[in-house]
């Protein structure tokens, strides 16, 4: 025996001002139910208002409403029945009339059936009742789902607001803490200095030396406050980047007094040397300089008194700009060196993690190097000292594209082919992107074949097939299979939003007048 959809009992309410027709319809419904193996009960009424008032409270209901009633038509009553939400309303007439059908459907009827056909053919009637029930249930559950969706959306919007407010207040909190820490530091530093300068009376040489220690310690603490603030911002992704094309030595010059003071404070000699032929770099000056401050602070910390720290600015064979900070400290054992390398990579991924023994400063440096499309390298020999190097790509298209591809390969080494779709926000016009991508050299020459991996950067995801096309059928065929994968990847990998960020380095550069047109192809 076939069971009805849903376990609740079904009552078919027949409304017809002609008692014979009402009786006939009720009996047809019972026969139809038997034919279908259903147990439908029937109730019949001659007045629609009486029927409305006596609709069963429990179970499921199907209303079969005659169109021509004593002083009215079904059209006058449909909205009342529909609004009661009791169940589907099937409208019946003795003759088929398209006009009537159109009217009743507009008013919310679930179906339109012809009486004679219903009396003769129980399958026809049974099907109509069953379909009415099914459709009514669908509409109900749709309505419920859309209500639930609306509620969820509202909840989400509310949660989002809360999160935004929380982020804002976290931001403010971090700033407040940093501010409050710096103020007493300023007092300590200034009074140590007032005493040392003999403003408040004569001081012995020994005391002067001790006051200098206080001063150095205050500087260390102030630097830690900066580190703490930056690390918190990095973790919350609140650090904005403002890159410009500039002469590489400026990165050192920008912080020269700070570097000098750090070295002098610990009795270390600081040497700064720059080669003649150094490429321009495309960086956020304060963040790139910050890397040098941190590397130098570490070098000074690990140097003996009277030791030397050397900052060397030069270029390598790939045309990259190198800022090397060398010390004459105890050096780092090979095993530990590997760990540092690994940590360099991890810190970049983990955001703001400490690198053991090197404090927050080095971890921050790794990230600030990455923000400028650069990387850190370390070389060391036990007993002789270490050299930490900030490597920045030259400020030209090829240099930046290479660094970008490097970035992709480092972060997604397992992916043989990678498509990265990015959206043109950040005020980058679609036109600029198109112009840039239609140049195509970038993708074809540099990114498609990079160290045996294939990496493709392309425009907005909707345009992806077109860019694939432009890259040539062979490339397109190979890439097609991975396209969806990459879009999914993008949606589910939190760190992937770094990719557009690095990509924007290129776009920013183009927007700031980078020579795309006459770049070497």
């Amino acid at each position, binding site marked *: 025996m076939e069971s009805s959809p849903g376990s609740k009992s079904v009552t078919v309410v027949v409304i017809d001002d002609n008692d014979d027709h009402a009786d006939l319809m009720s009996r047809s419904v019972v026969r139809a139910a038997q034919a279908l193996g259903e147990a439908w009960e029937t109730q019949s009424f001659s007045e629609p208002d009486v029927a409305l008032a006596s609709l069963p409270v429990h179970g499921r209901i199907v209303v079969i409403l005659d169109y021509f009633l004593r002083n009215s038509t079904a059209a006058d009553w449909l909205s009342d029945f529909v609004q009661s939400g009791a169940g589907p309303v099937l409208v019946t007439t003795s003759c088929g009339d398209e006009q009537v059908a159109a009217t009743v459907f507009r008013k919310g009827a679930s179906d339109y059936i012809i009486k004679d056909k219903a009396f003769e053919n129980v399958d026809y009637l049974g099907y109509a009742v069953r379909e009415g029930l099914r459709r009514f249930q669908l509409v109900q559950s749709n309505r419920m789902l859309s209500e639930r969706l609306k509620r969820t959306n509202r909840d989400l919007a509310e949660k989002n607001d809360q999160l935004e407010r929380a982020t804002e207040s976290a931001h403010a909190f971090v700033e407040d803490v940093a501010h409050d820490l*710096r103020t007493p*530091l*300023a*007092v300590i530093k*200034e009074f140590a200095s007032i005493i040392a300068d003999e*403003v408040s009376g004569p001081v012995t040489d020994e005391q002067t030396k001790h006051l200098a220690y206080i001063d150095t310690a205050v500087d260390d603490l*102030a630097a830690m406050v*900066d580190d703490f603030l930056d690390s918190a911002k990095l973790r919350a992704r609140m650090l904005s980047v403002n890159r410009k094309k500039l002469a590489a030595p400026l990165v050192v010059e920008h912080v020269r007094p700070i570097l000098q003071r750090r070295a002098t404070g610990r009795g270390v000699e600081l040497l700064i040397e720059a080669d003649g032929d150094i490429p321009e770099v495309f960086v956020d000056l304060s963040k790139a300089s910050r890397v040098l401050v941190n590397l130098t602070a570490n070098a000074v910390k690990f140097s003996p008194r009277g030791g030397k720290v050397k900052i060397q600015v030069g270029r390598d064979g790939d045309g990259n700009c190198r800022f090397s900070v060398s010390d004459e400290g105890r050096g780092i054992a090979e095993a530990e060196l590997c760990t540092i390398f690994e940590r360099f990579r991890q810190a970049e991924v983990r955001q703001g993690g400490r690198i053991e023994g090197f404090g927050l400063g080095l971890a921050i440096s790794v990230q600030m190097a990455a923000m400028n499309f650069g990387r850190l390298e370390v070389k060391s020999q036990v007993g002789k000292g270490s050299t930490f190097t900030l490597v920045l790509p030259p400020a030209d298209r090829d240099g930046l594209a290479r660094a970008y591809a490097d970035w992709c390969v480092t972060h997604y080494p397992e992916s043989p082919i990678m498509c990265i779709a990015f959206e043109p926000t950040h005020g980058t016009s679609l036109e600029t992107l198109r112009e840039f991508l239609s140049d195509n050299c970038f993708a074809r020459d540099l990114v498609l074949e990079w160290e045996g991996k294939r990496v493709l950067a392309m425009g907005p995801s909707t345009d992806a097939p077109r860019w694939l096309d432009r890259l040539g059928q062979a490339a397109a065929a190979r890439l097609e299979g991975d396209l969806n994968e990459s879009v999914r990847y993008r949606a589910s990998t939190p760190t992937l939003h770094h990719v557009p960020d690095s990509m924007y380095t290129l776009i920013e550069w183009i927007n700031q007048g980078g020579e795309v047109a006459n770049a070497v192809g």
Partner: protein
Amino acid sequence: MPSGERVLVIEDEELVATALLSRLTAMGYEVEWADRAALGLERLRAWAPACVLLDLRMPEMDGFEVLRRLRLENLPGTPPVIVVSANYQEGARRQALDLGAAAFVGKPYKASDLLREVRRVIDEHAEVPAEG
């Protein structure tokens, strides 16, 4: 060596103000301290200092508001203002300079840097005839 040039310190932190006072007095400046911005504005008009050292974060009225008011009033003889602040937020320095501050010194500051800035802004202000 300055001889009695007036420097007004607007700073709510007593210890910071004391440090500034000790240092500047030792350097031969005549120094007055206002612990609130409103009092500072009043002293700035009544006492006519050669230079003002201004904190940014203060209760009731902050340093930005002081700069804003000075710019709105735009009175002749308004002294140059050096902002001395522990607010390193990106934009704080720029905003202060945009609002007409003559210099920005971060806390903790190095005494020689601060004194150099005080000297510089007083000298530069003396060279330029007062704007109307």
